[in-house]
């Protein structure tokens, strides 16, 4: 064991074990500490960098906590109206069929206000990638009930817990769109442990490779946390997610053709 290891030794290039992808801008992430959005951004950008396709990629940011994704990702991007990212991405992909196009959407955006756009983009088999961040709540607007809020789970618009009799059941939109012939790869991932991060990255990589092979729509759900909206600490949030979200939204590939 080295005795007098100095700072210079530690930061030597050959000792580098982790580096921020070049596709992150210098802008500090605005997400709450512990939020999954930052990790998921990184995975998307790492995949674009490793595939060498960032110069041919156009991203679509939603309305939601990730509305400012275009400030953090050093690629060309469009900001879409709430729920309309799949339609915007369709417009882009149809005029630029050779470019890589992805949307990055929350559950309110993708599975409530934008349900029609989601289902029809999937059904047409638009050759795009959808990254769906499911945190079971409306983060940006302060923790209201989402289409994916669990039964009994509290949110600011269901302060006594989601009553499925009057408020409806959580929507498993990922299972739903997997039924459509236009989707080629549908998977559910998480990023709360290094192992899950690695798996999620593989899934995102595959989702972009599918675009190259013109396979149709690839859909990657990432079950994530929202410690601010759930009103718990980041550590408790991940624990709660494992215990409550995963049984309802089981991880793994749902469709791969």
């Amino acid at each position, binding site marked *: 064991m080295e005795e007098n290891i100095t700072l210079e030794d530690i930061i030597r290039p050959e000792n580098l074990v982790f580096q921020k992808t070049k596709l992150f801008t210098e802008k500090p992430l605005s997400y709450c500490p512990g939020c999954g959005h930052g990790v998921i951004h990184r995975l998307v950008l790492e995949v674009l960098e490793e595939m060498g396709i960032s110069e041919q990629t156009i991203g679509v940011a939603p309305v939601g906590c990730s509305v400012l994704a275009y400030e953090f990702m050093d690629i060309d991007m469009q900001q*879409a109206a709430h729920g309309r990212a799949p339609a915007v991405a369709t417009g882009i992909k149809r005029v630029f069929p050779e470019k890589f196009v992805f949307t990055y959407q929350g559950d309110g955006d993708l599975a409530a206000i934008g349900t029609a756009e989601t289902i029809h983009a999937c059904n047409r088999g638009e050759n795009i990638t959808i990254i769906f961040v499911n945190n079971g709540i409306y983060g940006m607007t302060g923790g209201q009930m989402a289409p994916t809020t669990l039964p009994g789970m509290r949110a600011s618009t269901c302060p006594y817990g989601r009553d499925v009799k009057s408020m409806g059941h959580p929507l498993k939109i990922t299972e739903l769109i997997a039924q459509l012939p236009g989707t080629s790869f549908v998977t559910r991932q998480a990023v709360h442990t290094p192992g899950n991060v690695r798996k999620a990255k593989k899934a995102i990589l595959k989702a972009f490779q599918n675009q190259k092979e013109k396979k149709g729509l690839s859909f990657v759900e990432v079950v994530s946390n929202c410690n601010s909206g759930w009103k718990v600490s980041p550590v408790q949030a991940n624990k709660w997610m494992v215990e409550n979200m995963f049984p309802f939204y089981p991880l793994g590939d749902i469709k791969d053709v």
Partner: protein
Amino acid sequence: MKELRLMKGNEAIAEAAIRCGADAYFGYPITPQSEVMEYLMAERPEQRTGMVVLQAESEVASINMIYGAAGCGKKAMTSSSSPGISLMQEGLSYIAGAELPCLVVNVVRGGPGLGTIQPSQADYFQATKGGGHGDYHLIVLAPASVQEMCDFVKDGFDLAFQYRNPVMILTDGAIGQMMEKVELFEQIPRSETQPEWACVGKPATRGRSIITSLELDPNRQEQFNLKLQKKYREIEAKEVRYEKIQCDDAEYLFVAYGTSSRICQKSVQLAREKGIKVGLFRPISLYPFPYEAIESLSKQVKGILSVEMSAGQMIEDIRLAVHDRIKVQHYGRFGGMMPVPSEILQQLETQIIGG
């Protein structure tokens, strides 16, 4: 060689779209304009020019597909009729806020609500005063013939790209459905390049192209709004269009656009046969509205009858132009009804000349 064809207004829109080198059309069926997409699909524009045509799941989707394609610097358009245009308002506000060029055709039908499929001009306020949320304007062109339906598609795209602003062709079911002779312009090739602001994928040599209407800092949002307003003042100064018919010796004036102006042309003839000197002023650009031209005519004529297939919307702009100097009244049929030339003349006689 001039190419003459007998066409419906809606077909002329579609043919002009292909010929002016449009890159994409996204739309959703609604009467009385479904022929636009039907014609396009039958023409196989993907083979003729490489133009993309896609039937969307709704007007909400189609206007957002336009946003995406326009954000790539492409010439994208849609067409619809009143209820569908209402659904597009959020998207149009985003397009105006992101300063994207595009063309939207509204073949107006009678409302409110599901209303009727018959022609109407009751969407004037929505088209010219913003329509969606926030301080913005569409450039609005009002064709009065099938020829202008064709020509304004090309002009509309030119204006849209010149000002990076959405352009609307505001027409109605009558012009959309009627057949007239059209002289078609020659095929213009689709552009192979995109403007520098477009999203095309970011090369290492430039900064990011970002298409957005978001600016959370109110100071910067105000600055952006001031920039937009400056653009609108420039449009108001440079892009006013109108036509004057028999106005030189006129003592009275009809002001009417689109279908109403066609009907009023006959009313002018009937009036002059009776010895009443009436002229017709036809606004072609509804935004920017020809305030100054109407103001100067108001110094010459004794009264104005605004004729519109609505309960009276454009009359507010005419009154603004006239500053109460002379009498301005409205005559309209609405809910899908159209006035006949003799009843318009009668209204002039009772409301303006006799009144």
